[in-house]
């Protein structure tokens, strides 16, 4: 592909990088059998359960898959609502 074509179509990343990025996502879902939709409902239920015990910031909750070698890990970042902030609201 000529670079003028790239500019014409505003292609920032090359196709090898695109392939790598797409594969990285596909492999996570293949390996864990967790679709983006399932991950979303997992996140919602998690928020529900944790909210029964502590006050959290539901919008700030992040659930992500991380990869270490061939090991998959589910990472949850769940910010708690601080007492100080509760007073201000």
């Amino acid at each position, binding site marked *: *592909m000529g670079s003028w074509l790239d500019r014409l179509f505003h292609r920032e990343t*090359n*196709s*090898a*990088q695109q*392939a*790598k990025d*797409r*594969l*990285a996502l*596909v*492999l996570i879902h*293949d*390996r864990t059998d967790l679709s983006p939709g399932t991950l979303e409902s997992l996140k919602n239920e998690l928020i529900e359960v944790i909210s029964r015990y502590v006050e959290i910031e539901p919008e700030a909750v992040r659930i992500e898959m991380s*990869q270490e*070698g*061939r090991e998959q890990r589910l990472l949850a970042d769940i910010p708690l609502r601080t007492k100080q902030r509760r007073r201000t609201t």
Partner: protein
Amino acid sequence: MPAKVITVTSGKGGVGKTTATANIGAAMAANGHKVVCIDADIGLRNLDVVLGLENRIVYDLVDVVEGRCRLRQAMIRDKRLPELYLIPAAQTRDKSAVSPSDMVRLCNDLREEHDYILIDSPAGIERGFRNALAPADIVVVITNPEISAVRDADRIIGLVESEEKGPARLVLNRIKPAMVKRGEMLSTEDVLELLAVELLGLVPDDEVVVVSTNRGLPIALDGKSKAGQAFRNIARRLNGEQVAFMSLDDNGSFLGRLKGLFSPGGN
């Protein structure tokens, strides 16, 4: 020492399993090892034509399993490499004609008198793959730097691990260094990062492979081609030798070829 069973598999079809099996087998035999290649792709056999032995088939794998012949009768000896044998697949049967335990038994019968047993697995993750995997001591996964081949390789690597046959060892086949350089093909580093698996070999895309397959002469026996060298290196690594990975950068360019001419036997 009894033979090691090496299964060559890939998930996706057409990535070069049969070519790799034939060439690794030929390279091992050329190094003086006693090698048996088994075509486990029942119904779609091809290892016979790639090795140039198709005219000498009398009995096949299913004949052995079903007791119509002795094991020795189904082993075709390669005249160019007297230590290389082929057990061809049956062409008119399907994968269910053989079971994983049949394959284990067959390999156990071959182990004492050979150094390596190479099994050419069919594509897919069904019965044929299970047959090829069951007797394996080492699993070699072949892939190409293409999105679908890498995805399928990942699936196979996972299955190999869950069957406790791991860790699988990867051969990246048909690399086009010029495309990698232009950012139009996944690089070796990309594929290794995605699959997180041990690298066994890098094989450049080489037109000579097509020509040698046309003739039924394994490219590994051609001293000059880069792909042949790559397969010889893989055979030596499987034999436990430390062999540096070849640099593929020069391939294709005029200067690179010129350089290749003046450094014979390099990398």
